C-alpha cells in the first residue's frame, strides 16, 4: 500500500450530508436485493435488465460492465484512489473514461457488484442512473469554476439537477435515455446542443443571471441539433421548467419503435413551437403549485460547496521555461485560469498507440498524488475522454509535466488530430458493428509527428463503432462510423461536424473504407485541407467554405494509399 504523500486534499466540491449518504447506501442495498433476486431466479433477465441498467450495469460481449457516475465530471483524489482500488480488486486493473465524463469498468462479475457499490458509497460515489431509460448523470464544462470565460460556475446547478433527478418517481421509466448537460461559457466544451436537454447559464438584458434551456439534440442514428425551449428561465423556476419538459416527453413520446423514442424525435415531429407550447402549459402549472420552486437559500447553500478555493496571491503569472517538449505541451494542454498565477492543465489520455480514455490503476494512483500536490485535490473528466487539473500554479507546470511524462500521459495533443474520441467498439461492446480502438490507434500513429500535428492545428476526430454514436462521430470535424458489410468491418467518413458552440452535424462522404485504408483516407482528406486552407482557417472552416467535393475526390484516390 502506498503511503499517501502528500496528505489527501479535500477540494471544494459537493460533499454528502447525512441525507445523501443514507440515500446512496439504501440504494446500494436495494440494488443488492435486486441482484440477489436475479441470482435466485426470482427476476427474469428481461425484468432485471432495466433495473440493472438504471444502476449502470451492462452485459457486454465478455463480461458485465459497470459504469460509475462522475457527476459533472468532478472527482477528488480520494475518489480517484478508490477507483484505482476497484480496478485492481474487481477488474483487470483498468478503468475507462467515457464521453459522458463517467468511468466504466469492463470486466466485472455480477456477484461483486454490491461490494463495489458499497466501496463507492464510502467515497460518496454511486452508479445511479448511469444507464437505462431515465435521466442520466448530468455533465458539465470541465473548466467549470476555473475558466475566466464563465458567467458563474455551472456545477451548483448541475448538483441541484442531480439531486432532483435521482430516483424521480415520474421519470425512471422514460421512453428512452435522457441526457442533460450544463454550461456557462460562450465557448461550449460540453456539447450542449447535442443533448436531450441542456442548460446554459446566461445573463439577460437587465443583467440578471438565469438559464437558457435547450432540448431535442442528440446523436445516435438520427442526429439533431437542439432547439431553444426558453431563452431565459428565472433561477427559482429552473426545476419546474426542466420537469415540464420531461413530463411532456414522458407523456407524448412514441413507445412503439425504440429508434424513434428520444425527445429529439418528438420535438421534430410536433415542431419546436408546439413543443414550447406544451412545455409552457406544464411549466405554468408547476410554477403555480410552487413545490418545485428553488429557494435562493438552497441555491446559495449548494453554491457554497463549490466556492473558489483560496488561491495564492503574488504568484508569477508567466509560463516557466522548461525546454521544447514542455513548451509544446503548454501550447495545447494549458489554458487560462481565472486566478493570476494559475492555469488549467489538460492530461490527454491519448498517448500515441493507447486506448483513448483508458487509465490503469497505477496511473490513477499517481494522478491522485499529482492532484493532491498540485491541483488542490481535484480533477475533471472531459467528454473528450481526457482529464483536467483545474487549479494549478503556473510555476508548478514543469514539475507536473515531468510527472506526466513518467506516466506516459504527457502527450502534447489536446485538441489536435491525435486527441481522438473513440467508443469501446467491437473490442468490448455488444452493440458495435466494428472496432473503434484499432482505428483510433492507427490514425494516431499515422499523425504521430508533433510538428505535423501542430501544422494541422485544431482537428477533432471522433469514432463510433456503430450508429448509436457513443463516439460522437456526427460531431467530429472528421467523423468515422464503423459499419458491418456482410461480415466485414467498413468505415464511413463524415466531414464538417462540430460539438462546440458552432454545432453542426457531419455530412456522410459516401461509401466506406476498409479497416486498412481508413487511416490513409483520413490522411488524404487532411492533405486537401493543408493545400486549400486560408490563413487562420481550421479544418472545419475550410470544409465549410469549400464543401465536400474536393475532400471526397481525394479520399477515394486509392493510388495514394
Amino acid at each position, binding site marked *: 500500500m502506498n503511503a499517501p504523500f502528500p496528505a489527501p486534499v479535500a477540494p471544494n466540491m459537493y460533499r454528502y450530508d447525512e441525507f445523501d449518504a443514507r440515500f446512496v447506501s439504501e440504494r446500494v442495498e436495494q440494488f443488492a436485493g435486486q441482484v440477489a433476486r436475479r441470482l435466485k431466479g426470482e427476476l427474469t433477465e428481461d425484468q432485471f435488465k432495466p433495473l440493472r441498467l438504471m444502476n449502470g450495469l451492462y452485459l457486454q460481449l465478455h463480461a458485465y460492465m459497470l459504469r460509475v457516475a462522475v457527476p459533472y465530471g468532478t472527482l477528488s483524489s480520494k475518489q480517484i484512489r478508490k477507483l484505482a482500488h476497484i480496478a485492481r480488486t474487481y477488474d483487470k486493473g483498468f478503468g475507462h473514461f467515457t464521453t459522458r465524463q463517467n468511468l466504466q469498468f469492463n470486466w466485472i462479475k455480477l456477484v461483486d457488484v454490491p461490494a463495489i457499490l458499497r466501496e463507492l458509497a464510502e467515497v460518496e460515489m454511486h452508479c445511479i442512473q448511469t444507464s437505462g431509460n431515465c435521466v442520466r448523470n448530468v455533465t458539465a464544462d470541465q473548466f467549470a469554476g476555473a475558466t475566466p470565460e464563465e458567467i458563474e460556475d455551472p456545477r451548483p446547478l448541475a448538483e441541484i439537477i442531480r439531486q432532483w433527478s*435521482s430516483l424521480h418517481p415520474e421519470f425512471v421509466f422514460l421512453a428512452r435515455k435522457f441526457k442533460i448537460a450544463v454550461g456557462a461559457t460562450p465557448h461550449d466544451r460540453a456539447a450542449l446542443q447535442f443533448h436531450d436537454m441542456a442548460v446554459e447559464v446566461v445573463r439577460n438584458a437587465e443583467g440578471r443571471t438565469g438559464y437558457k434551456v435547450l432540448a431535442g439534440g442528440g446523436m445516435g442514428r438520427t442526429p439533431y441539433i437542439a432547439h431553444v425551449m426558453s431563452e431565459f428561465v428565472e433561477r427559482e423556476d429552473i426545476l419546474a421548467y426542466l420537469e415540464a419538459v420531461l413530463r411532456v416527453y414522458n407523456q407524448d413520446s412514441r413507445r412503439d419503435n425504440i429508434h424513434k423514442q428520444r425527445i429529439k424525435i418528438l420535438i421534430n415531429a410536433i415542431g419546436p413551437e408546439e413543443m414550447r407550447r406544451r412545455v409552457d402549459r406544464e411549466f405554468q402549472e408547476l410554477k403555480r403549485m410552487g413545490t418545485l420552486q428553488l429557494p435562493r437559500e438552497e441555491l446559495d447553500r449548494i453554491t457554497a460547496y463549490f466556492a473558489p478555493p483560496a488561491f495564492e496571491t503574488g504568484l508569477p503569472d508567466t509560463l516557466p521555461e522548461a525546454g521544447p517538449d514542455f513548451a509544446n505541451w503548454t501550447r495545447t494542454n494549458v489554458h487560462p485560469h481565472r486566478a493570476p498565477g494559475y492555469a488549467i492543465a489538460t492530461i490527454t489520455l491519448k498517448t500515441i498507440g493507447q486506448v483513448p480514455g483508458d487509465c490503469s490503476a497505477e496511473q490513477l494512483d499517481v494522478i491522485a498524488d499529482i492532484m493532491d500536490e498540485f491541483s488542490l485535490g481535484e480533477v475533471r473528466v472531459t467528454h473528450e475522454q481526457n482529464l483536467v487539473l483545474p487549479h494549478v500554479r503556473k510555476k508548478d507546470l514543469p514539475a507536473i509535466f515531468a510527472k506526466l511524462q513518467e506516466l506516459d500521459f504527457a502527450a502534447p495533443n489536446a485538441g489536435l488530430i491525435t486527441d481522438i474520441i473513440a467508443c469501446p467498439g467491437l473490442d468490448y461492446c455488444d452493440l458495435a458493428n466494428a472496432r473503434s480502438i484499432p482505428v483510433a490507434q492507427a490514425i494516431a500513429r499515422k499523425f504521430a509527428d508533433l510538428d505535423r500535428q501542430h501544422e494541422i492545428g485544431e482537428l477533432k476526430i471522433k469514432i463510433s463503432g456503430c450508429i448509436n454514436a457513443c463516439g460522437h462521430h456526427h460531431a467530429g470535424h472528421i467523423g468515422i462510423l464503423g459499419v458491418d458489410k456482410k461480415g466485414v468491418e467498413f468505415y464511413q467518413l463524415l466531414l464538417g461536424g462540430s460539438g462546440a458552440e458552432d454545432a453542426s452535424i457531419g455530412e456522410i462522404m459516401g461509401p466506406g473504407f476498409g479497416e486498412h485504408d481508413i487511416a490513409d483516407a483520413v490522411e488524404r482528406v487532411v492533405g486537401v485541407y493543408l493545400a486549400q486552407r486560408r490563413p487562420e482557417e481550421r479544418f472545419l472552416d475550410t470544409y465549410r467554405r469549400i464543401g465536400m467535393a474536393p475532400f471526397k475526390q481525394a479520399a477515394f484516390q486509392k493510388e495514394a494509399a
Partner: protein
Amino acid sequence: MKLLKHGAWAQDTFTPVADDAALPRFQKDREALLERNTPLGVRLQSHENPELLGDDVNRLSLVALEFPKFRDGRAFSWARLLRTRLGFTGEIRAVGDFLYDQINYQRRVGFDAWEVPDRFTLEDFQRALTEMTNVYQPSTDGRKTIRELRAGI
C-alpha cells in the same frame, strides 16, 4: 390476482366490462353510465391521457391505469396529472405488467391501489415502500423532500 388498497387487502367491488376499449365505450355511453348513480371506474390504456375524460373524471370512483409492459412509464405521469391538474381524489389502481420495484414510485405519484399476483404479500408491499427512506423531489404524496428536511421545514 388480488387487490391491495390503502395498504390492505380489499374486495374488488368493480365488475370489469368485457371490453378492451373502456375509454371509447365510456365516451359513447357516458350519460347512461353516469346516470346509474353507482360507483363507476374507467380503465385507461397507457397511451390514453386522463384529460380525455374531461370534467367527468370527478364523477368517477376509480381510474385504473394500465401498464402494458412494465417498461412503459407513461402511467406515472397520468397518475400525477390526475392527482394535480384534474384534482381526482378517487382510487387510482395500477393494473397490468408492473414490478415490485415500481410500487414505491407508483405510490409517490398517486396510485393507491394495486392488482397484484396471488403470491404477493403485505410484507412485500411494506418493504417496497420503505427501501428508500427519503426523497429528493416533491410529488403528489406530499412527502417532505430532502431539501425541506435539511432546512428543518
